[in-house]
């Protein structure tokens, strides 16, 4: 057997000797990925963006003002939103251990009940019609092999967060039997957190649910449900977290 061990080891080492040539190539890719200075073109784009922002703000303010003349309620709500929130801002978020500057845009939830800042280069908000909740999902549809990536925001006016969290826990357990016990959290929003992974989280595409049940500021609740997959936890999961840090209920 010892002889076989030595022969196999030698055969594997001989057969993979191209590793020596691949080593510098991979290092070069790593250098580009991790240490490359931003190209001059990138800097130009960034500068241009800064100039564009005031124009965008002016345009957005114009649209908001035009809308605000339509109804009294609309006018009051929009005035409040205008006072509190800028239409676009730059946030720093930590994605896969790296700090990333991202421009995020103000989005108004269903019936102007809340606002949230969304990175519109990557995500879009589909406002729910009728009883349907608002859904934030990837701007480009993901290829078929990827599980769903979305964040659903729904207001349940008649049920307090503690009661709703327990109800929701039972509901999610049907789909995610290993759902973790409910946790109270203060970040990114203050309320109850539910978290579950399918199949024990062994594979890159195991589905993840991450939900919050929070107070709507009155008698009811908001339920925020993120769905993504294990490998996307540090990407989409972190971006949803950053978006929720900019989630505000409009009183």
């Amino acid at each position, binding site marked *: *057997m010892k002889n*076989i*061990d030595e*022969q*196999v*080891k*030698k*055969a*594997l*080492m*001989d*057969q*993979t*000797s*191209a*590793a*020596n*040539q*691949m*080593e510098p*190539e*991979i*290092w070069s*890719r*790593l250098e580009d*990925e*991790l*240490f490359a200075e931003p190209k001059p073109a990138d800097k130009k784009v960034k500068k241009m963006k800064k100039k564009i922002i005031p124009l965008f703000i002016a345009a957005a303010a114009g649209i908001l003002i035009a809308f605000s003349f339509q109804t009294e309620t609309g006018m009051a709500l929009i005035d409040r939103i205008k006072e509190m929130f800028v239409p676009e801002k730059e946030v720093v978020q930590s994605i*896969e*251990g*790296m700090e990333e500057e991202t421009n995020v845009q103000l989005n108004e939830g269903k019936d102007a009940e809340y606002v949230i800042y969304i990175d519109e280069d990557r995500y879009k908000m589909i406002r729910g019609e009728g009883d349907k909740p608002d859904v934030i999902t990837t701007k480009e549809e993901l290829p078929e*092999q990827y599980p769903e990536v979305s964040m659903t925001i729904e207001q349940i006016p008649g049920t307090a967060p503690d009661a709703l969290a327990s109800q929701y826990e039972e509901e999610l357990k049907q789909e995610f039997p290993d759902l973790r016990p409910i946790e109270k959290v203060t970040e990114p929003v203050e309320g109850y957190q539910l978290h579950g992974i399918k199949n024990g989280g062994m*594979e*890159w*595409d195991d589905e993840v649910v991450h939900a919050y049940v929070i107070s709507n500021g009155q008698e009811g609740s908001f339920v925020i449900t993120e769905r993504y997959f294990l*490998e996307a936890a540090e990407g989409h999961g972190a971006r949803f977290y950053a978006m929720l840090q900019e989630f505000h209920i409009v009183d």
Partner: protein
Amino acid sequence: MNHKKSLDKHSFQELYKEHANFAIRSAMVITRNPELAKDAVQETFIRVYRNFSSYDANLPFEPWLYRILVNECNRLLKKEGNMRSYPQPNLENDERLSTSSDGNAADLIEAIQNLEDLYRIPLILKYIKGFSEKEISDILELNQNTVKSRLYKGRQNLRQLLEMTEQEAYLNEKHR
């Protein structure tokens, strides 16, 4: 090498130089595909660089590195499609993988690549990097006795496959 909690470019390059060669070799055999191996090693070192603060410096570094590497190889294989549908002859036909292949070496490679992953991956870790049973159990997050048994069965299967190949070659020669 002393692994600090955060890495500057120089320390990261040193770490890469120290570990890249065997990592690439292992990835080449695990994925059976040099291009995929490059991606897996690149992703592994990116993860090492970005998540170095989460590495517990009291534990040996290599099992941590290879745990990430094996996971990356499996992830990329799965992403590319079905692991089983990967063309096995890659390893023998790709010139980057066959600088010196006498018949016996090719048989050995074929035999090891024909093993189930259950046995193949522990054997690759053992033969290429010389990891101990304890280290392999850390990398694959398995019980040490399970690794011991898989290595034993893997080597038995390997020997059987080799004997069958030799017998076939003998019969072919005889009937010529």
